[in-house]
């Protein structure tokens, strides 16, 4: 019995103490500092050694030279269309079309990618496999959506509202001062409401990415089993110099 009382006592004391403790502590002072991980900081040896085998097995492939960039290009260089975005969309048009034709006996009318999908710029100089991985780290596939003219129109309206240099190819968009859609064309032609068009894009966008809702209304999405990154690597290998330009494909009056 005595033992129980002692135990109970300890229990109560602890209980009270932890109760007090609860009310006792409050934040008196807060300090903060966001520390730059500077070049001069030494690397932890054991961690570096741990990474080494993972690193070396991918290094050889990554360092393979593919092409040469005549100038540096970043996705925010210009407001309505960018050299790097134009290169990517044009590369998709050029490289995906033969595959699509071969497999599905049709041709691509235009290409739409997303500005956010350009994950890095390209610096002037040698383009390697690593560059392609930096620009397109994701495993996204190129797909072709069959859209009715009505949905193509929605696509152009989306582009005017987005106020972003989403990469496009083989189409043109003109917006007015208030970003309202003024003019557009696909494959050099006007878009007819009831005709079908083939827009090459990525599986990310066709699945609702970046709220490109018009893609969800596609009556068919054709697979061509071509990763966007692989396509870029192939494009770089086919072109020994890369020097894309900004043009009038998306312009604001």
């Amino acid at each position: 019995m005595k033992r129980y009382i002692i135990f109970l006592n300890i229990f109560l004391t602890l209980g009270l103490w932890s109760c007090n403790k609860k009310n006792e502590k409050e934040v008196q002072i807060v300090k903060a500092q966001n520390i730059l991980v500077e070049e001069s900081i030494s690397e932890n040896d054991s961690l570096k050694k741990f990474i080494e085998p993972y690193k070396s097995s991918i290094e050889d492939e990554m360092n393979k030279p593919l092409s040469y960039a005549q100038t540096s290009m970043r996705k925010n260089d210009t407001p309505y269309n960018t050299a790097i975005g134009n290169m990517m969309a044009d590369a998709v048009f050029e490289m995906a079309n033969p595959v699509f034709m071969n497999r599905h006996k049709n041709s691509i009318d235009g290409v739409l990618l997303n500005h956010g999908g350009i994950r890095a710029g390209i610096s002037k100089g040698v383009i390697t496999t690593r560059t392609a991985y930096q620009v397109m780290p994701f495993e996204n596939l190129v797909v072709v959506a069959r859209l009715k003219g009505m949905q193509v129109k929605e696509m152009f309206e989306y582009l005017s509202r987005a106020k972003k240099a989403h990469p496009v190819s083989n189409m043109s968009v003109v917006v007015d001062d208030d970003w309202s859609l003024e003019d557009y064309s696909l494959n050099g032609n006007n878009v007819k409401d009831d005709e079908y068009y083939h827009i090459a894009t990525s599986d990310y966008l066709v699945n609702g990415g970046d709220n490109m809702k018009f893609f969800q209304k596609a009556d068919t999405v054709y697979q061509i089993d071509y990763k966007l990154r692989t396509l870029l690597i192939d494009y770089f290998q086919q072109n020994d110099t890369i020097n894309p330009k900004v043009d009038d494909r998306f312009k604001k009056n």
Partner: protein
Amino acid sequence: MKRRDFIQYSVLATSALSLPYRAISKVASGDESLKHITILHTNDVHSHIDPFPMDHYRNPGRGGVSKRYTLIQKVKAENPNTLVLDAGDSFQGTPYFNFYGGELEFKLMSKMGYHASTIGNHEFDNGIDNIAAQLQHAKFDMLSANYDFRNTSLDGLTKKHQVYEVDNVKIGVFGLGIELEGLVSKNLYKETKFLDPLEVAQEQIKTLKEDYSCDLVICLSHLGYQYDSQKIDDIKLAENTSGIDLIIGGHTHTFLEIPTKVKNKSGRTTLVNQVGFAGLYLGRIDFYLGSRDQHTSKETVFEL
């Protein structure tokens, strides 16, 4: 008026920003009765395991896990009562992810002694089953309170929250993730259900405060710092809740020079911090906790 005493330290701190880390000033924290808890944090590291190459146009030689680990160890040597946290998107961004699927990211975070992380949208890039598979390499807690993973392979592999007791201070940490629809393909997140972050946060705060008597409540958020739209973000989360001491944010790759002080629902301050991306920065917050009656000033002093 306490604030005035600390102004000079703030000035010092600013001028010392280029130093890798700053020793905690003795005057401000000299009170032995105060409990000192350090929070170190990252977000959106995106598989940046190596430092940026020396020919990088903006960040030559910066970042990298083995440099970050040196910093973490220095801070821990200074204050062993340190928690290391991450706010998601540790996956995707370099070939390390493409080749190894996140294994190396999780192994390194484990080796660096991370306590917890949360699930960012890019964690889903190789599918939800890949997250489940890679979690075998994680020795830290994966915290996610507003994704319902029932009917997915992640069911049971994550926790809503975790309470860490450090030097008798109870620190409750919970995780919040962003709406996946429209951001991640459904075939990747499968049957994951997104629950309202604000409602879930309120439940979590209540649980951590009332059931676990936490002294500090920290939210690991992958919601994003701030949007012009109605979309929930860290600032709105801070404004519309009370009881969160610190929101460690991610997703928007926002680099804050100093944490943002937000007046929360009860008129107190909730801090929101986010440190860009790619492991270029390590966020550090030092909390000094003491008994209420020890100080005449009831206001928390922020030396930011």
